[in-house]
């Protein structure tokens, strides 16, 4: 392991990779601040560039830097103008925006940066411990277990979708897997479900799908409801001063940051949970723990209420790399896009990654530390200048967001049909979002669909049927876990309903 770490340090500290970290963090912060472009869209736009770089470590370092930068940029816009660019930073605006209105925007940004730094760094330390342990267990896995593990991952994503949403999320997952079967697959040389359209023969490009599912609906929402983009207003987000925090304040937030780094990381490791849930849960837990005056402060500009979600979301971002790097299973939409990028770069994440390509594996982890330092020392002083970006008028911002969305899917394939596909799927995705269908499960289903089928076919060929599902105990346990994950939320809901009814009758 020590050898691997040293190899990683050497790779991460080359001039090229250091430039990648800095560039990634800066680009991520810049774009992540704009409403309508979350980390998923930014990473999808950056993929052609990353592939062009060619070197997988450098590309992954760049993309990981963009990811952190985007989360941090999202916090900046939630604090300054109450417009979270990313779902994971919605909880940041609860206390961050009130602080900014009290004239403490600089202080709020510093707390956000320190929280992010601590969360990311503690997350990276835990990742170093967790990932090798999990990878060594995963090495024992067989295609049957992989198949079962992917089923668990997909059902966990649906299970975390929230009450009453499980069936909808499952439906979207199945739709994603179905879309993955379009085109020629590696195992069969006959095209499937292309409806005779030649452009579909190579399948649907995942960047196009990612853009259609996230960037385009968000941009259309900004058009439909102008109140969502509070950009271009005078007086807001303008003056930022007083970046320093006092010793007393530091003492107050230290335990919060400590707790939330660990809690956020653990939530991030679970597939389907990710930064959004981690930040909301972090906020809720800290509000419940806080006593008296402190608790009343929450929602009115409490520094604890700001530090909690900020620390938790960055720790969760790091945590979500654990299943990606060790099992090859993405836990969130963003890591799903990263997985797609890795496959395009000829790297297959999974337990073998640590053994076969230790320098890539460790370089990514080491660059996480560097990325966090860059965010703290480079971005923080630059924030007042970067924040000027928020003053771009909406009439310019939206056409540019739409244009970047189209460029992302166009330059990957150099095919104008891709743009028509993007518009069509984007419209469909927007309508589905109107109806409250979660879109991330669809993308994860799409990305895992191919791997799911490959492992399913291998397992079936080895046992000559589906008997592997109950013959191998590990597979059976995982599949039972998947079923439990799906039915647990609806069972709990039913139980609550029965209880409520019981109380009503008792009265």
């Amino acid at each position, binding site marked *: 392991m020590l050898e691997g770490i040293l190899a990683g340090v050497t790779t991460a500290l080359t001039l090229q990779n250091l430039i990648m970290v800095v560039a990634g963090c800066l680009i991520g912060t810049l774009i992540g601040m704009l409403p309508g472009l979350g980390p998923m869209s930014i990473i999808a736009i950056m993929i052609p560039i990353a592939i062009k770089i060619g070197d997988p470590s450098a590309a992954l370092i760049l993309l990981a830097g963009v990811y952190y930068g985007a989360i941090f940029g999202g916090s900046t816009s939630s604090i300054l103008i109450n417009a979270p660019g990313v779902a994971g930073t919605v909880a940041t605006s609860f206390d961050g925006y009130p602080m900014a209105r009290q004239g403490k925007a600089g202080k709020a940004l510093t707390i956000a940066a320190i929280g992010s730094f601590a969360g990311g760094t503690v997350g990276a330390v835990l990742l170093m411990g967790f990932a090798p342990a999990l990878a060594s267990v995963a090495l024992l896995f067989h295609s049957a277990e992989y198949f079962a593990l992917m089923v668990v991952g997909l059902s966990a994503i649906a299970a975390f979708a929230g009450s009453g949403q499980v069936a909808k999320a499952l439906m979207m997952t*199945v739709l994603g897997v179905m879309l993955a079967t379009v085109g020629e697959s590696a195992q069969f040389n006959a095209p499937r479900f292309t409806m005779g359209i030649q452009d579909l023969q190579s399948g649907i490009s995942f960047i196009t799908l990612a853009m259609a599912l996230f960037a385009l609906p968000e941009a259309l929402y900004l058009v*439909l409801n102008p109140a969502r983009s509070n950009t271009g207003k005078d007086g807001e987000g303008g003056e930022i001063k007083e970046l320093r925090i006092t010793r007393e304040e530091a003492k107050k937030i230290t335990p919060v940051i400590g707790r939330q780094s660990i809690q956020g990381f653990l939530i991030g490791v679970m597939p389907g949970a990710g930064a959004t849930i981690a930040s909301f849960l972090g906020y809720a837990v800290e509000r419940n723990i806080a006593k008296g005056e402190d608790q009343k402060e929450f929602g009115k500009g409490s520094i604890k209420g700001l530090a909690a979600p900020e620390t938790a979301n960055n720790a969760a971002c790091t945590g979500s790399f654990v299943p990606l790097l060790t099992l090859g299973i993405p836990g969130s939409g963003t890591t799903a896009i990263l997985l797609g990028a890795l496959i395009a770069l000829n790297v297959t994440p999974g337990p073998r990654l640590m053994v076969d390509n230790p320098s890539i594996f460790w370089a990514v982890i080491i660059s996480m530390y560097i990325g966090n330092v860059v965010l703290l020392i480079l971005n923080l002083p630059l924030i007042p200048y970067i924040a000027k970006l928020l003053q771009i008028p909406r009439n*310019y911002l*939206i056409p540019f967001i739409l244009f970047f969305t189209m460029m992302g899917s166009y330059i990957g394939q150099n095919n*104008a049909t891709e*743009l028509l596909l993007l518009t069509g799927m*984007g419209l469909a995705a927007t309508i589905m*979002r109107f109806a409250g269908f979660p879109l991330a499960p669809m993308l994860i289903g799409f990305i895992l669909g191919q791997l*799911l089928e490959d492992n399913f076919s291998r397992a079936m060929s080895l046992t000559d049927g589906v008997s592997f599902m109950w013959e191998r105990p590990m597979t059976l346990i995982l599949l039972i876990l998947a079923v439990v994950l799906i039915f647990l939320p609806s069972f709990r809901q039913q139980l609550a309903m029965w209880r409520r009814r019981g109380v009503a009758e008792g009265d």
Partner: protein
Amino acid sequence: MTLDRAIAGIFVLICVIYGYTAFVTMEAGLLPFERNLTFLPNTMPKWLSILGAFIGLIVIVQSGPKEAGEIDPSEIDVRNLRQYKLGQAIALLVLMVAYALLLRPIGFLAATTLFICLGGYVLGERNYKLMVPVAAVAAFFIWYLVEQVLGIFLRPWPWFVYGGA
């Protein structure tokens, strides 16, 4: 009928067509030796179509009209769709389709400049003196970045420059 039920209904329909293709069309297209294999191109699609149709039906049964309090204020309330800028959104989507169709014939630079200007126009921007130069400079800059730095060819000029091809 609520929108989510309609979407789930369409999804079930898709599953039926998908399933028909997997069970009937693809089955008929199999080669003789393939019939003895355990795993076929239509094995997973068969499972998926059944699972999908089943889940789709559950969504249809479970969904219902939302209570007023259930709607997240940050989301769009579909029942009052008219209070939003629907016209602008549709116009922008039409512009995107036009961009896709015109990108090759009139070239990247012209298509992009037009798209950004017209997009701004749709949204209500009337300061042409600023809008046109911003769009043109941005189009040129991005073309330069993508083609010269990244090396991805974008076909910058209209068709007549390339001799009518």
